[in-house]
């Protein structure tokens, strides 16, 4: 469809399944749920996704079966349209354009040609229930502008609206009152609960409402866990209500069964309660559903219920309260501590899942494969309770080993820390706990890495901690004549001037270990555990650290908190280049030497792909996301692609996936070749043209090679030794001045490009302190041009560049 190759961001998975109530088809064979911009159709028996209904251009906010034709489905979206689908074939039948944002959708069998929707018209937080008349027309797109107002000042959530007794009335709840609108009489009755500040009524707020299908009875859920059953509400004075109280916390959702004989309720206890005959005595429970029940729905045939949970799953439950199927999406209701990892065996994405679990998520099928219980303790859901968190995890030795770290910190001094090492068992095809280490460090573990060299015969793990030590753990033979066993023990403990260890990383061949201690990077020999050398840039704490791979294995990259990206050459032990880039995520590609870095600015996140050997990036993509990107990972492709364009070759063997902070709107994306024309493509396509014009300039301004300071040994020595190791300034002065005299002579012979305004040699000589030096390099980033790049450009290009420099710099500020 698209001739030229372009790269775009595709939202690829992990979409929410629990945003709205799921809807059953009339025969209970299918279940529908909204999922971002799509509607997903699942089979209730096999749990498989049957269709994905594409078409909406914004978040889908409501779905309902067409009451007149049970093979059709209405959906509404924030893009202001109501669409009618044939869900069996997955075809869009009709689009009704309403024109304002629709927040929920309701259908009533009696009102044949109209549906109800929640809209907000004037102010952003005032919502109205309106009836939308759907005109009968044969065309595909129909304007439906005929809105008639029903109720005002209602809650945005569709849980707070319920149509009762075959559409005779509609009940809406908000804060402390319940309003009932009678369609025939066109009157509204309003019932208010006391909202006094005293303890008894403080949490009287309504949370949800449900109407009895046949009788005049309204059930309402409250913040304090009570359920009230309202009757006789035709009369403003004589109305009555009864209370049902089991939930200890807020009632999240209510639903009547089809016949109305029982009422279902759920909350954060993750227990589904069935109240039979609406009495307090007669109740049945289905406990241990795993997470807070957010929505409950009932199939029209009456044989199935379903509950949507906060951990992004839908459980289908039989009438006799037996769970029959679980549709599980990517769990993301908690913050992700472990980052994104790829299981080398299954190629599944691995990250924090349910509390205390690691989830293995297949990116190909957009489906959770399984959960690995790491913490193995009963999860108590209570507000304000400090839970054990799974903070770090790492795979090693081609997926044979998994290391996990869990911690719980109640007070400053009371830290519980546990490291677990899991071995993959081929027989059971799963991970089995091998070693449990209590308090591996005195303080939080900041980084964890395995030595993944192919030739290494002994698995090695390194942990870095805030207590100032890094520890090397090795697998030792624990077997005696009675049993064969292996276990992990500590082999070496290293530290550097009691600084906090912040990161650790093994080189590709496993011969070197880099550990960063706040601002200082130390390189250790992995055989003798001797300190080989240190790098210090005085540019803030090291946030990310990684070695180059393959041809670039002599380089070490470090990103600091002050927004400097440094590249050191391990052969010369000198800084190769640095660049001003506020790196949030830095990920090496396992299949090539490329490294992806995502920088964060006030506008959004930008992606840079580069090789450590060259300071100019291979590829830049601006604005991949508006929010902060939290984690990223390269995923190897099963079948390599062949992009001809040089800028996209980095995607040949791997894809890049990333996860943004607010996981609600933009969950998981991948950069990939574009297939259909979509709005994304248009935006990016335009952006690309714009970008091409400025490509050269961008490169040079973003990343500038350092002047070749290694030509002057005294200066480089001065610059590359940490300040605290240096002797006094008086001692160094004469040596330093001498070196300058010498260097002047050598420099004079050297070619200096004429159009470099600021001579970099001069800078490097002038700088007598590292901080000073770096600041000046940053200046060059903005104004000067790197030597090497100049050499590669022809004269005509240089001229053009000079023009550019004069013309436009405003966009830099926008980055």
């Amino acid at each position: 469809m698209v001739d030229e190759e372009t790269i775009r961001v595709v939202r690829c998975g992990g979409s929410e399944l629990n945003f709205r109530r799921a809807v059953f088809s009339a025969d209970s064979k299918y279940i529908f749920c909204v999922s971002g911009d799509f509607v997903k159709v699942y089979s209730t028996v096999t749990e498989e996704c049957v269709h994905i209904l594409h078409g909406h251009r914004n978040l889908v906010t409501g779905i309902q079966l067409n009451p007149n034709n049970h093979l059709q489905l209405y959906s509404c979206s924030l893009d202001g349209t109501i669409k009618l689908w044939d869900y069996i074939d997955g075809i869009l039948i009709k689009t009704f354009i309403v024109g304002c944002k629709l927040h929920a959708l309701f259908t009533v069998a009696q009102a044949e040609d109209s549906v109800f929707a929640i809209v907000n018209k004037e102010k952003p937080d005032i919502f109205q229930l309106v009836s939308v008349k759907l005109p009968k027309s044969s065309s595909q797109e129909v304007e439906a502008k005929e809105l008639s107002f029903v109720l005002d000042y209602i809650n945005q959530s569709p849980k707070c609206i319920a149509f009762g007794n075959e559409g005779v009335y509609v009940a809406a709840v908000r804060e402390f009152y319940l309003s009932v609108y009678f369609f025939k009489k066109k009157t509204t009755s309003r019932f208010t609960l006391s909202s006094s500040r005293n303890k008894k009524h403080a949490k009287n707020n309504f949370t949800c409402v449900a109407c009895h299908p046949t009788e005049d009875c309204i059930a309402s859920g409250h913040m304090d866990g009570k359920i009230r059953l309202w009757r006789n509400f035709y009369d403003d004075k004589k109305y009555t209500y009864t209370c049902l109280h089991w939930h200890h916390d807020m009632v999240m959702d209510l639903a009547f069964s089809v016949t109305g004989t029982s009422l279902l309720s759920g909350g954060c206890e993750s227990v589904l309660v069935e109240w039979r005959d609406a009495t307090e005595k007669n109740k049945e429970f289905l406990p241990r559903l795993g997470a807070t029940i957010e929505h409950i729905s009932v199939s029209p045939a009456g044989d199935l219920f379903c509950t949507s949970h906060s951990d992004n799953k839908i459980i289908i439950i039989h009438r006799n309260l037996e769970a029959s199927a679980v549709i599980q999406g990517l769990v993301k209701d908690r913050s992700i501590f472990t980052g994104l990892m790829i299981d080398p065996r299954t190629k599944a994405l691995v990250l924090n899942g349910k509390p205390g679990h690691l989830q293995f998520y297949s990116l190909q099928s957009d489906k959770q494969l399984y959960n690995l219980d790491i913490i193995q303790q009963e999860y108590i859901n209570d507000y304000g309770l400090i839970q054990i968190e799974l903070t770090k995890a790492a795979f090693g030795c081609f997926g044979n080993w998994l290391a996990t770290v869990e911690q719980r910190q109640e007070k400053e001094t009371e830290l519980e820390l546990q490291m677990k090492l899991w071995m993959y068992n081929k027989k059971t095809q799963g991970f089995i706990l091998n070693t449990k280490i209590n308090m591996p460090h005195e303080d939080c573990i900041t980084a964890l890495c395995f030595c993944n060299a192919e030739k290494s015969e002994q698995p090695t793990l390194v942990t870095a901690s805030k207590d100032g030590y890094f520890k090397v753990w090795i697998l030792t033979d624990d077997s005696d004549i009675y049993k064969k066993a292996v276990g992990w023990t500590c082999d070496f403990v290293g530290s550097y001037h009691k600084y906090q260890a912040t990161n650790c990383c093994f080189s590709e061949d496993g011969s070197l270990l880099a550990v960063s201690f706040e601002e200082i990077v130390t390189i250790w020999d992995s055989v003798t555990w001797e300190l080989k050398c240190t790098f210090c840039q005085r540019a803030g704490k090291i946030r990310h650290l990684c070695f180059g791979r393959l041809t670039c294995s002599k380089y070490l990259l470090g990103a600091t908190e002050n927004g400097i990206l440094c590249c050191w050459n391990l052969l010369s032990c000198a800084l190769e280049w640095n660049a001003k880039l506020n790196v949030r995520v830095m990920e090496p590609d396992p299949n090539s030497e490329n490294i992806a870095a995502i920088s964060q600015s006030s506008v959004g996140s930008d992606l840079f792909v580069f090789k450590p050997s060259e300071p100019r990036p291979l590829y830049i993509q601006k604005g991949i996301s508006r929010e902060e990107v939290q984690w990223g990972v390269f995923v190897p492709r099963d079948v390599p692609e062949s992009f001809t364009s040089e800028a996209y070759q980095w995607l040949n063997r791997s894809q890049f996936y990333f996860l943004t902070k607010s996981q609600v709107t933009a969950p998981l994306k991948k950069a990939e070749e574009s297939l259909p024309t979509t709005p994304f493509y248009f935006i990016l396509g335009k952006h690309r043209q714009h970008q091409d014009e400025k490509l050269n300039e961008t490169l040079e301004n973003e990343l500038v090679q350092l002047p070749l300071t290694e030509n002057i040994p005294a200066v480089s020595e001065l610059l590359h030794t940490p300040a605290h190791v240096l002797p006094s300034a008086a001692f160094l002065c004469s040596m330093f001045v001498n070196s300058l005299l010498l260097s002047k002579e050598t420099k004079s012979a050297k070619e200096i490009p004429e159009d470099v305004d600021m001579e970099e040699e001069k800078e490097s000589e002038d700088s007598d302190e590292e901080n000073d030096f770096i600041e000046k390099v940053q200046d060059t980033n903005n104004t000067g041009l790197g030597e090497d790049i100049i050499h590669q450009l022809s004269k005509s290009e240089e001229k053009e560049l000079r023009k550019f420099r004069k013309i436009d710099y405003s966009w830099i500020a926008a980055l």
Partner: protein
Amino acid sequence: MAGYKPVAIQTYPILGEKITQDTLYWNNYKVNVGDNEGGGICVYANFSSICYTLYALTENCTRKIIFLLFKCTDLRSFRAVHTVDFTADKYHVVSGADDYTVKLWDIPNSKEILTFKEHSDYVRCGCASKLNPDLFITGSYDHTVKMFDARTNTSVLSVEHGQPVESVLLFPSGGLLVSAGGRYVKVWDMLKGGQLLVSLKNHHKTVTCLCLSSSGQRLLSGSLDRKVKVYSTTSYKVVHSFDYAASILSLALAHEDETIVVGMTNGILSVKHRKSEAKKESIPRRRRPAYRTFIKGKNYMKQRDDILINRPAKKHLELYDRDLKHFRISKALDRVLDPTCTIKTPEITVSIIKELNRRGVLANALAGRDEKEISHVLNFLIRHLSQPRFAPVLINAAEIIIDIYLPVIGQSPVVDKSFATSRTCRKEIDYQRELLETLGMMDMLFATMRRKEGTSVLEHTSDGFPENKKIES
């Protein structure tokens, strides 16, 4: 849906010797005999394979036994015979002596058949093959072990042990030869022409004697370092070791390992008998339900119209877990504070306290206790508070108790006595000070030993000392 997950009980590694089937087997001897053969030193011990009686040779009576055996005339030529053994056909005897000779005697004629003069030093040990009547081996102080064949008049094989050989042993199959000398025990493969199979160095001093267990699965070696070590003959790893009061010179095992005899330099012959494995059937077992009650309903074959409803198997939960499952926190705590639990398995009690703390209900569980109940808690705390493995959890619990019960202090003498733990505190503080001193000394040693490089390579000094623990008294 996942069921209740039981509380994870923290396990601690058991220090000291691991209990294996070998330790159980070899520890199952009782000491009942301590013989002293008239001041003589027992240098040789062996069990006759026929009559199960013990022959022990001491320095004094060596010649007597030889006299009895041979009644020969030329005994004057004997210079301290140190080894004799019957060959496989029982008609000949091999002897090795300090005159460097190895001789083969014919018993019926009391005549010397063959003399080998190949050794260049004292011959101190020998052993005849159990399979071939013509083969026997001797070990000598000239560091060699030689195998002789009565048919050839010369040695057929010679292996270099490296130290004066004190003892040799042939495996029942005859394929492997074990020699002991110096600190080494070496195993040689005879079928490969005397190739060294394995060299064991597990003793601190000279190994003096060797012995095989009756099954052939274990090899025993006794040494001057007062230890007998038991090796597995498959992996040649030490599986057990005995300690004796004095240096060991001789060692023997009776048939079926019933008795172990060790002769020592202090003249004592230690004889240990295996304890009889009395079947403990003293307590009549309570009558269990019949087998049919267990399989009731389980062997029912599904008929055509039946609907099978599977019920998940009920997981066994400990009593405290059952209480915790139903949020009966005080009851769960009471259960684990029971003396039977606190004495035998304090780690369970601590784990439950930790779990209650994790659930945020420890204060609730500890509150509202009467004098007797609170003294249970306090006794447990006082006993285990100073143990580093329990300290972090118990200090927290102690603080909570102090917070709760401080207003009512002084009302009960029993509780007040428990609270007054100033002595424990002082002891703990002294202990900590001592530890810190040691640590300082170790640091100084490390500092002097550190290499001159500017690296701060710090070997792991296990400074897992708990903080000073104090209970306000």
